[in-house]
């Protein structure tokens, strides 16, 4: 258990570092994929709806602290992402989800959509945002990009 926690923490720190340094290099019109939410989804699919949100909460805390963002916004968003992904947890057949590319990509898309929407929504409390703009620019487009990366991961797992 402790070993798994240490391993996950190291992976999270590395992923946040990549997210803040290298991922901006692959942006398309200001839209980037979210590697961290993919990892939260994978964790939740392996550990369920109780541990998933808790893990998302901790990852969000790290992200808020390390990125200098609004403390609480990524925590909220990633907790929800972990909860949604945890819903699809199957104790006896977890690998089945990873090899089912369509299902896995859909879960990533849904979780990423909720994550990016709430992250943007909570971070924009000081201004009135166009809700449609918020959903598309800060919700659907980043979620699609993230889902594409998720799909690549799923295909890689299936190949193995």
């Amino acid at each position, binding site marked *: 258990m402790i070993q798994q926690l240490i391993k996950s923490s190291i992976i999270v*720190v590395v992923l*946040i*570092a*990549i997210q*803040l*340094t*290298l*991922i*901006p*290099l692959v*942006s398309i019109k*200001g839209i*980037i994929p979210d590697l961290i939410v993919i990892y939260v989804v994978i964790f939740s699919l392996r550990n369920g*709806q*109780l541990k998933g*949100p*808790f893990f998302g*909460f901790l990852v*969000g805390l790290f992200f*808020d*602290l*390390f*990125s*200098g*963002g*609004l*403390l*609480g*916004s990524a*925590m*909220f968003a990633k*907790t*929800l992402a972990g*909860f949604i992904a*945890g819903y699809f947890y199957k104790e006896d057949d977890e690998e089945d989800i990873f090899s089912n590319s369509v299902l896995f990509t859909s879960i990533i898309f849904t979780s990423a959509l909720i994550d990016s929407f709430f*992250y*943007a929504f*909570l*971070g*924009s*409390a*000081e*201004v*009135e*945002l*166009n809700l449609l*703009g*918020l959903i598309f*620019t*800060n919700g659907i487009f980043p979620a699609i990009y993230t889902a594409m990366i998720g799909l690549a991961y799923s295909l890689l797992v299936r190949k193995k």
Partner: protein
Amino acid sequence: MELFLRKLFNKLKEYIVLAILLLISLILLPQNKNTEVKKIKSYAFATFALITNAASSIGDIFESSDELEEQRKINAELMLKLNRIREYALENKKLKELLGYKEETDSKLFPTTVVAKSFSNIQGNYIINAGKSDSVYKSMPVVTNDGLVGIVTDATENFSLVRTLHNTSFRISGTIQRSNIDGIIFWDGQNLVMHNIPTTTDIDKGDRVVTSVLSSILPPSIPVGLVVKKESNISGILSNVIIKPFVDVLTVRNVFVMQEIKSKQIDSLELNLLKD
């Protein structure tokens, strides 16, 4: 009763845990302005910046030499001088006899690199590898040779946090350079907007927008962007001016910190007021 509650908890434990975690997150949101929270955040991002600094150096493989850095610095200095000259020309036309009333200040530019980007249209922040040890402090403007990028909001010994134009908490006082109209500029999640400007004011598409002399944080005349649109609100009395920033905030990597916080003139005025 106890058994019932236990059963209920077992049935709903996922939802209870979720509610608690979400509640904690929401409670933390208003605490961001708390001094203790700010200290923790400063310490965290400065520690993490050591890692991102190393990671971002991977991108340096294809990057510049010292010579290029020097050229960029000269470019940025020229940009600031050119903008000041442009402003003087406009002033000269209107107020010839008052020439020279304003104090001349040469900003010192400190070249630095972005080591981490929080790539968001809402919470755009950068971490740069310059801090208090390089005489970089809170409220200093960050520019490129094209114009304003953001403001230093937190500085540790070796790293600083920059709030970019793509941050909804970003607010500056700006001026339409041609017609001298002042207003508050902010990021609305999609555009840079100068808010609530009277519709009758003289603003045209293509007008240059610079930082205002009214700003208590930024020095005046730093280029911000060009007016691309003027949108009237429902009543038609007030308009929002949409500005296209000169700097592409998303791709910027090498920046300069203007090591200037407030004008000496303002400082001396404030000191004089205190004496009285």
